[in-house]
């Protein structure tokens, strides 16, 4: 999908108008950003915004994050285990230390 993020009041206004005019192409709207269907028509709207507002408009191509494909199993397991921890106040680093769960630093170093 196309993620369009705006960085000025004027660009945000235009994005709002575009979303209103082309609701069919909009998947979700956030305050100053919107997610569009992955079609050339949505790309046209995104590029139009960029023509008008230049670097105040950021466009990214996104896709669904598949946790069974995009990360290793230890990350999934760690997330599940952390969410069912007994002490809600335990930060992840402390939770992971002394266990098989990956520590935050090594996770940061791993790219998706």
């Amino acid at each position, binding site marked *: 999908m196309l993620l369009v993020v705006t*960085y000025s009041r004027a660009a945000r206004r235009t994005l709002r108008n575009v979303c209103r005019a082309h609701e069919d192409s909009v998947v979700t709207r956030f305050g100053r950003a919107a997610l569009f269907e992955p079609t050339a028509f949505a790309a046209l709207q995104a590029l139009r915004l960029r023509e008008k507002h230049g*670097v105040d408009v950021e466009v990214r191509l996104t896709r669904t994050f598949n946790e069974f494909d995009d990360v290793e199993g230890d990350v999934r397991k760690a997330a599940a285990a952390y969410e069912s921890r007994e002490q809600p106040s335990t930060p992840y680093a402390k939770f992971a230390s002394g266990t098989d769960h990956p520590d935050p630093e090594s996770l940061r170093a791993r790219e998706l």
Partner: protein
Amino acid sequence: MRLRIDGRLRTGDAIAVTDVSAAAVAAAIRGDHERVHVAAPEPGPLFEHVGVITESTALRVRTAVARAARTRGLTTELDAERAAVRRRLDELECGESDPKAARRRVAEAGADEQRLRERVAELRGKLQAVRDAGGDESTVEATLSEAVRELSEVETERIAAEQALEAAETGARDERARREERLELEDRAANLAREARARLVDRVREEFAAAVAAVPGADPPADPYEASPVTAALAVARIGEPAAPLVVDTDRFDDAAAAAAWLDAPVVYIR
């Protein structure tokens, strides 16, 4: 004020004119008209709202009322914060660097690489075919080695292009963080302005209502903010302290002197 039309000089705080449009006098007050010249204090921010009052006046009443309150020196508790936000906005520098060229370079290098890869594969097949047929390999071989050399060059270019794009994206990310801050500050400034305006409007509510009720020839509604634009404009001008002369083109007053007296301001009255 001193007003000169086609070289004829008039002075005073209430001047009636004929054969000149309100727009022409307004342009003269702003300092730019060929036939009409006005020597008077510079128009302040109130002038853009109620500087010219005609039967077709359009008015954002609350904004104008708040402006009028400002001309009287009224302030709000929010002004200091608003000034601080504006100062921060002025200091904030947002670059204009756009990684567009870097993106294009990556796309072009990628396309070149793809094209050359296909060409090399095709030439390898051709070379094999020539060999199998026992033909002369040398021409195909030379073409292939040239294509391989080009491919390696293009690969190098693609890698360099990707690195350049990555660097440009990092720079763009920093810049976006500043733009984000700017947007937040702008929103904050707008909210403060709205809130300050509401407070100012509130401070002069009674006075504005009284002024609306006192406009000659008006049939004031229960809510003064529902008054006709020309009535509202006259009331705003009356409660404010306009710096420059007002240009009045309505039949609400008998003459220039009556208008100037009611508005308590210098007036150019279009007859």
